[in-house]
């Protein structure tokens, strides 16, 4: 093997890398916020909704969970203009990621809601709590606590999955990789550095979610 690894060229492009990290973090944060909200709404529809709403939510969850994210992204970014809806790169990325995460989150939160025993709700009723109070304190918060590990790893997976938006030229961390690659021609080095950065982001996020758990669910 006569190859000389040259990481210096890659490190010289630290501005491009920093910009990419920032966009990846922004994309992830907005998507997680919106996706979480959609997930809860859809989960509630799945459990308590009228028949039609339940079926609608089910179709949404199944269609999204059984097709690849990159195809959903291509359909939104390349496909929608064909029927007259033109979105810019960032909007398309956010839309695809949010729709995607919403479906996965819904399925997790639904499992959480269904894991709350009936007797708990009856206990709430007998204490004279109102419906919204029961939903909030007896159902939703314990449900989220139960599925917290699954939920937080889904969010970490989402952060990694945002790399797919580089394929429609959204300027995320992975896209920074391809820019640096075209400047330096150090393919292998570039993607090694980018991958290690994603690994760092993953570890940071896992740590952050661990901390958040203690902050939010501290009291028993």
């Amino acid at each position, binding site marked *: 093997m006569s190859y000389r690894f040259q990481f210096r060229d890659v490190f010289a492009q630290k501005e491009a890398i920093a910009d990419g990290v920032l966009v990846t973090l922004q994309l992830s944060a907005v998507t997680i916020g919106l996706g979480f909200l959609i997930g809860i709404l859809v989960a509630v529809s799945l459990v308590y909704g009228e028949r039609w709403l339940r079926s609608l939510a089910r179709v949404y969850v199944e269609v999204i969970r059984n*097709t*690849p994210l990159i195809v959903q992204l291509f359909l939104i970014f390349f*496909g929608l203009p064909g*029927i007259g809806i033109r979105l810019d790169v960032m909007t398309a990325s956010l839309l695809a990621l949010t729709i995607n995460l919403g479906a996965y989150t819904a399925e997790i939160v639904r499992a959480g809601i269904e894991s709350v025993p009936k007797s708990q709700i009856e206990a709430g009723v007998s204490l004279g709590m109102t419906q919204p109070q029961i939903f909030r304190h007896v159902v939703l918060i314990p449900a989220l606590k139960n599925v917290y590990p699954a939920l937080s790893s889904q969010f970490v997976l989402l952060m990694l999955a945002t*790399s797919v938006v580089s394929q429609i030229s959204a300027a995320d961390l992975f896209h920074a*990789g391809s820019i640096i690659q075209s400047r330096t021609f150090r393919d292998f080095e570039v993607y090694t550095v980018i991958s290690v950065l994603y690994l760092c982001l993953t570890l940071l996020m896992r740590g952050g979610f661990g901390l958040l758990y203690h902050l939010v669910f501290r009291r028993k």
Partner: protein
Amino acid sequence: MIRELALVDVYFLLLALRWTIGLTLLALLGGGAVGLFVAAFGAARNPVLRGVAMVYVGTVQGIPLLGWLFIFYFGLSIIGYNLPPLVAATVGFSIYAGAFLGEIWRGALVAIPKTQWEAGLSIGLNYIEQLRHVIIPQAVRMAIAPTVGFVVQLIKNTSLAAVIGFVELTREGQLTTASTFQPFSVYLLVALMYFSLCYPLTQYSRVLERKRRVLH
């Protein structure tokens, strides 16, 4: 050259679907082999082995699949092999699937109560016999539903092999789009094909999961 989207395009997409399935099977084969080691190491008593499994799983799951594909695509050519995308994709997906399958199987192994091992020991089975007759049959039953669930993930994720030029369903969709300029219909068709492959498996995984719950 621009032309109309025709039946022949559907046919070509179906042909490409074979490569989606083929890559999934290759990844399952390679990933299954890696996964066995990851599970065995992860469930071992030796803390060093457990540590190795943990670091492997943590690293693989902490880097986007796109990253692994590019690393192997460009990395293998550095070592001097000018390999077709199929090889890079197979290696990348095996590494990736190995971590997830390993985690699933390790979970199943560890979930078997210690008393089952002791029961095996008390009727005079040695370690290998305990594994073979007592532990593995139970662990397999526990692991099968999540394993089928992961196969669905794998099928969907093979779509990423398109970016290193491996012509599977998604790449064929891109090529068809380029010649017909009808991305909406093409990607809808592509999505439909993935769905018809994945949905039955998802349902099957659910049935298996329900059966397992009834048994326990």
